């Protein structure tokens, strides 16, 4: 029994979500191999090899794999899939993009967003935006799954000494082409990796106020910035800041919800945070039902006060 973990990376660094996925793979039992499919991604392969718990790293390098196109990455996974009992992807935008393609080609069902490994063939996963937890069993020859990163602690990034084996890269499918990307430059931690998140809701009122009030707090705490769907839909914050079932799933040490009412779909994205602070004018807001510390106050007064007090 061997599990293949598909590494998430940007060709330069191994993303943290890979480490959580490796932990899930270790819990399955058996060996853990990591596939690094990229372009000039030797540093990523080296980082994967240094991760505790990894027995072998397979490294496929080609310009066709540079941008993680689903068609090419899926083909790369399929080229080596027959050697594995489990194939795990982080449940990130890129993992979710590729995993079903691999499963369909192998003619097996796929498990999405597993949050707990019960045994080698039985897992837990949230359904209905986290309002129910399904225990599912997959008795197919290969178990293809995406792993909810907040369900598993990250594997230790050091201490491993796995061998890196170069494997032949697949050819470009020729059916899709990468045109460009706009990735916001982050001078603060990434949302899914942050220890502290400061998040704003519809009560922020405008994108100017969102920045004016919450950015100094995030700076002071060294926190990432997040937002509710209502705030994103209203244009107060960029799309990729959205925390919730249809956005990012986060579980930081501290989550500070400012002016967020706490819709079910938002709670589904952050209720696994260690400590939740809610600041809201409306004392009936559902966010208070999950908050460890609730402050009923006008955030435009309380947040500046909080910044001063820190």
């Amino acid at each position, binding site marked *: 029994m061997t599990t293949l973990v598909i590494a998430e990376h940007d060709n330069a660094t191994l993303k943290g979500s890979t480490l959580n996925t490796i932990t899930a793979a270790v819990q399955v039992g058996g060996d853990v191999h990591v596939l690094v499919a990229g372009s000039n991604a030797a540093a990523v392969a080296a980082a994967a090899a240094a991760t505790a718990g990894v027995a072998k790293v397979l490294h496929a390098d080609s310009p066709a794999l540079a941008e993680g196109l689903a068609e090419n990455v899926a083909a790369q996974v399929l080229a080596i899939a027959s050697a594995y009992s489990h194939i795990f992807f982080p449940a990130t935008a890129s993992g979710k993009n590729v995993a079903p393609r691999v499963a369909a*080609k192998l003619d097996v*069902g796929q498990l999405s967003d597993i949050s707990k490994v019960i045994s080698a063939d039985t897992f837990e996963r949230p359904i209905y935006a986290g309002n129910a937890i399904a225990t599912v069993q997959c008795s197919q020859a290969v178990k293809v799954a995406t792993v909810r990163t907040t369900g598993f602690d990250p594997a230790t990034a050091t201490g491993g000494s796995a061998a890196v084996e170069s494997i032949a890269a697949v050819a470009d499918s020729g059916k899709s082409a990468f045109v460009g990307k706009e990735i916001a430059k982050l001078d603060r931690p990434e949302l899914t990796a942050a220890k502290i998140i400061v998040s704003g809701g519809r009560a922020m009122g405008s994108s100017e106020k969102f920045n004016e009030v919450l950015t100094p707090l995030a700076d002071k705490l060294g926190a990432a910035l997040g937002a509710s769907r209502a705030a994103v839909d209203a244009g107060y914050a960029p799309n990729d800041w959205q925390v919730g079932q249809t956005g990012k799933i986060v579980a930081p040490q501290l989550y500070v919800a400012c002016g967020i009412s706490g819709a079910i779909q938002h709670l589904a994205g952050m209720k696994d945070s260690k400590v939740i602070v809610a600041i809201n004018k409306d004392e009936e807001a559902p966010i208070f039902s999950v908050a460890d510390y609730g402050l009923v106050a006008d955030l435009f007064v309380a947040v500046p006060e909080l910044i001063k007090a820190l």
Partner: protein
Amino acid sequence: MKVLVPVKRVVDYNVKVRVKSDGTGVDIANVKMSMNPFDEIAVEEAVRLKEKGVVTEIIAVSCGVTQCQETLRTAMAIGADRAILVETDVELQPLAVAKLLKALVDKEQPGLVILGKQAIDDDCNQTGQMLAALCDLPQATFASKMELTADSVTVSREVDGGSETLKLTLPAIVTTDLRLNEPRYVTLPNIMKAKKKPLEIVKPDALGVDVTPRIKTLKVSEPPKRGAGVKVPDVATLVAKLKTEAKVI
């Protein structure tokens, strides 16, 4: 160009589902059912492409129980031209749906298939990608913008950290994210018109697809409850608690 738009009948997004006490699933008896919101965005996008003149025909498809006809009528009220129901009482998992859709893609030969990125009941986020794999077609998931020409589609996708743009050769598969568009309200005259549009019913057998579920649900349970904490009177108390009690700052 023909566009195929699969739609799923799901528990309405405003309904808070309850887990059945025997742990066999969630209680959906007498609960309001609606079109999966992401699918509604897919139908809307197809209709806008038709209004722009690049698309000539929109075929809505649903796989599932007889009542999915209502979902298909809604799709036709938004603007789909005709509908196909693949009727079955079997619990359909994404791979089975993808196989049924592949059979219809082979038959109808659409230039584009637009699907919702995920259904809000099982939260799988698989069907579009699986369909693309089975048809050997290129895919662009989580679309926030799309531009269609006669032989290609350029799609902006929501990815972690921002967005990226891909250009796919047609035929292709696109799945929609939340902010691709805002679906229109269906008007009464359009609901009336939709009743007269053709709706064909086929069985999975007729499409040669085995829809047996691959993954077994052993039980469904309530998520662990997170208890409410305390209300603090002021900012100073909050900071003190965070420092000394929670020790997170």
